[in-house]
């Protein structure tokens, strides 16, 4: 029979977990107080570009709209009011006085809002190009995945990435085939508050293919979209890219954080795609909430190979992560202690390559 004390204890833990989940939720919901339209066109002779901002809580509010060109120059701004339960539907050219331009719109609101950008063509013969894209919500991500791209000379496709925070980050894009083979990569600096558009075809050696693009940053967060248009087949589609969550905000509040740091096979060399995560971890460790606090950097391996070898490998990997945090993240080395766990603490059974990859990890524990 369960004792009342036990029940209370379990309930307390469930409540803590629920609160933590609630805390985690809003920043990554589909509505928020900060929106970004990643791609906006003002070209009054050709396009009607509508900004839609809707109140999601029935309270109404004030929204501030800032329009930036691709280079990140502020070219227009306005303040608007949304009635409770209503929405704003404005031709965006109004905010730049009809000037022809391409750029981003950044919206901050006193209420939680959801946004969209509708791009309609004035020439009825181009109606097939009409498009609507949801606004990106929140502070952006350090990682995005473009779940599908086409590289084909007969199809125009664009990966659009916008700086979300005004920090002008460096962006790394890796293109993989459907079979998971690396087909191309590039590195781009975004101007502060700016954006860029790249065409996959040129970056995969003009090879006709379809695949996945993985995008990550150093020095700030981003939002992004994928656009695909075929003049021949007469269609245009666009959708938002999915982002990853901000590690920094998690590590600030939690005593343990699991980060899947990627290493080369049988090596302690950290793969480039993990740099952004580690910089986020460093940022959190140096944040006000955690300043001076000490952490254990725990290395874990899968179960392939001898335990003794894996033990040393896990220590070397934890040490690589510590070195990275100290050198590039400016974390005081004295705050970090290294522990190698080898294969002794798997998260999942080591029965498939995918599960083994999950077990090869580094965890940060607040001491």
């Amino acid at each position: 029979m369960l004792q009342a004390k036990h029940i209370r204890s379990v309930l307390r833990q469930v409540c803590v977990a629920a609160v933590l989940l609630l805390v985690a939720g809003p920043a990554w919901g589909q509505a928020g107080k900060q929106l970004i339209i990643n791609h906006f066109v003002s070209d009054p002779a050709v396009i009607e570009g509508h900004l839609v901002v809707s109140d999601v809580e029935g309270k109404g509010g004030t929204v501030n709209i800032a329009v930036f060109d691709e280079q990140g120059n502020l070219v227009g701004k306005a303040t608007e009011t949304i009635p409770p339960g209503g929405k704003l539907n404005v031709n965006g050219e109004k905010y730049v006085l009809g000037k022809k331009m391409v750029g981003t719109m950044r919206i901050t609101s006193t209420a939680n809002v959801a946004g969209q950008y509708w791009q309609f063509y004035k020439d009825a013969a181009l109606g097939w190009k009409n498009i609507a894209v949801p606004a990106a919500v929140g502070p952006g991500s350090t990682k995005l995945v473009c779940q599908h791209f086409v590289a084909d000379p007969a199809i125009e496709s664009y990966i659009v990435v916008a700086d979300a925070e005004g920090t002008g980050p460096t962006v790394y894009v890796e293109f993989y085939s459907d079979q998971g083979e690396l087909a191309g990569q590039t590195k781009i600096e975004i101007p502060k508050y700016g954006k860029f558009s790249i065409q996959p075809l040129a970056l995969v050696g003009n090879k006709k293919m379809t695949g996945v693009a993985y995008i990550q940053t150093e020095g700030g967060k981003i939002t992004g979209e994928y656009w695909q248009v075929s003049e021949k087949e007469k269609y245009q589609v666009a959708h938002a890219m999915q982002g990853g969550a901000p590690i920094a905000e998690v590590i600030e509040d939690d005593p343990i954080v699991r980060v899947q740091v990627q290493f080369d096979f049988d090596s302690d060399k950290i793969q480039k795609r993990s740099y952004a995560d580690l910089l986020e971890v460093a940022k959190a460790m140096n944040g006000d909430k955690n300043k001076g606090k000490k952490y254990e950097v725990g290395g874990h391996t899968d179960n392939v190979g001898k335990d003794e070898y894996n033990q040393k490998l896990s220590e070397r990997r934890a040490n690589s992560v510590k070195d990275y945090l100290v050198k590039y993240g400016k974390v005081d080395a004295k705050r970090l202690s290294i522990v190698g766990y080898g294969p002794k603490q798997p998260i999942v059974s080591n029965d498939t390559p995918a599960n083994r990859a999950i077990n090869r990890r580094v965890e940060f524990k607040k001491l």
Partner: protein
Amino acid sequence: MKYTRNVLFAAALLLLASRVLAQGAEKYIINHFVNDPSVIDAHLVITDVEGNGPIVAMKFYDNDGNLIGEGKELIQPFGKLNLDPGKYVKKVANGTIHIEAQGGNIVAEYWQFYKDPKESWKNTTTVGQDAAGYTKLVCPHFVSDPDVEVYIVLANTDGKDAIVNVVFHDDNGREVGKARELVKANGKTALLPWNIIKTKATGVAFITAQGGKITADYWQAEKAKSYQIATPIAGI
């Protein structure tokens, strides 16, 4: 007792960490798919987001929530699948796709292309959604107009019948209509704002679900202007 508490707490934290740090999700839903090979070329795209190469199990349901097809496939690490629903569904049908990944997170999308080149202006794509679903959603924009074909697509995500209430407000926030629908477990339904509001309007639709969780899309097509658009509806 203390041990149990610690295990529970650690499990909660791990759950939190994996939920918050993850890109994509283990369970995804495509709110609307069509299998009609003579008319539509449909593509289900499922992408590995973490380089783990998960196995994905797919279940295809009709609008009433009946299972009409299923399949299992492996995604290569950093790769993706581009599948024809007709491989798994052997009849003309319309419904939802539930996807569950083992061994890594995924994202998914649905592409609907028309085989008749004269209909290509209808080609469109929708992104899949985390199948955790919502009980509150907001459709940021709808049109009520007899000349514009509009659907609010409501899909049941968690295998329990849901009663869905939709309240339509115009742009100024004035209530202009409401609807109450049953969305069967694993099924879906579509609302046409014009049939409910009966006057021309644009606005915002507030959606709540009771008894089960849902996800939703908004579809808008206009033959006179030759366009079709589909966007996900925000869960809040």
